[in-house]
């Protein structure tokens, strides 16, 4: 059970730095085909920003910002984007993840449609990786104790 840090320097500095780390993570996702980066690397940096917030501000405050329900929904949403683009290409009559057939839908040339399709897939991967990283760290830090166990539902013979 990680409690809030009682030092004002660490709390203030991490509260200042977390938005900038997230903006940098979005930059890394978007520039995947120009420079080192892409979906997975940007997702890791985005997850690391949430982990920094959890380390310095404790489990309760982090639960208010991003609960386990929201983390599960984000990971499913990222997967939906990835598979949705693939299935859209399948419905249009070509192979799975063949972005060239999306050119009639987006009204661009096929080369540009491939570039946009890759960008969409990277965004989906980034969101899913962020949610899974936060979820794993959250589960390990609670120690496997659910809130229901602490209250006592009274279903056991005590």
């Amino acid at each position, binding site marked *: *059970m*990680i409690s809030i840090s009682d030092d004002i320097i660490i709390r203030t500095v991490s509260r200042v730095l977390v938005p900038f780390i997230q903006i940098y993570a979005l930059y890394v996702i978007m520039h995947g085909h120009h420079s080192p980066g892409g979906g997975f690397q940007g997702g890791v*940096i985005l997850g690391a920003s949430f982990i920094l917030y959890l380390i310095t501000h404790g489990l309760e405050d982090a639960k208010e910002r991003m609960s386990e329900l929201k983390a599960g929904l984000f990971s499913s949403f990222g997967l939906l984007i990835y598979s949705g683009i693939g299935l859209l290409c399948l419905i249009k009559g070509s192979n799975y993840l063949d972005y060239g057939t999306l050119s009639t839908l987006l009204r661009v040339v096929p080369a540009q449609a491939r570039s946009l399709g890759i960008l969409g897939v990277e965004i989906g991967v980034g969101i899913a990786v962020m949610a899974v990283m936060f979820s794993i760290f959250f589960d390990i830090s609670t120690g496997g104790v659910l809130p229901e166990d602490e209250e006592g539902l009274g279903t056991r013979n005590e």
Partner: protein
Amino acid sequence: MNNFLLCLGIGLFTLVFLCLYRGIFGPGILNRIAAISAIGTKTLVILLIMGFIYNRVDMFVDISMVYALLNFIGTITAAKYLEIGGEI
């Protein structure tokens, strides 16, 4: 100018090995954490110098920014773990 940067890089690389001595033989865990943080800082500068030697700086700037981030987050996590007595 390339030769000057290469000598600088080799000198920093030697300093990394000197820091590694404290990382291996430091009595206790706290000395090792400080040594790892110092090694990370020197690695960042070595990466940028390598980018200048190979004339492709655009690639190496993003990587070194990420490494600075991860060094910071790792040190803060290790300090928090020691502070609460290792009950994470």
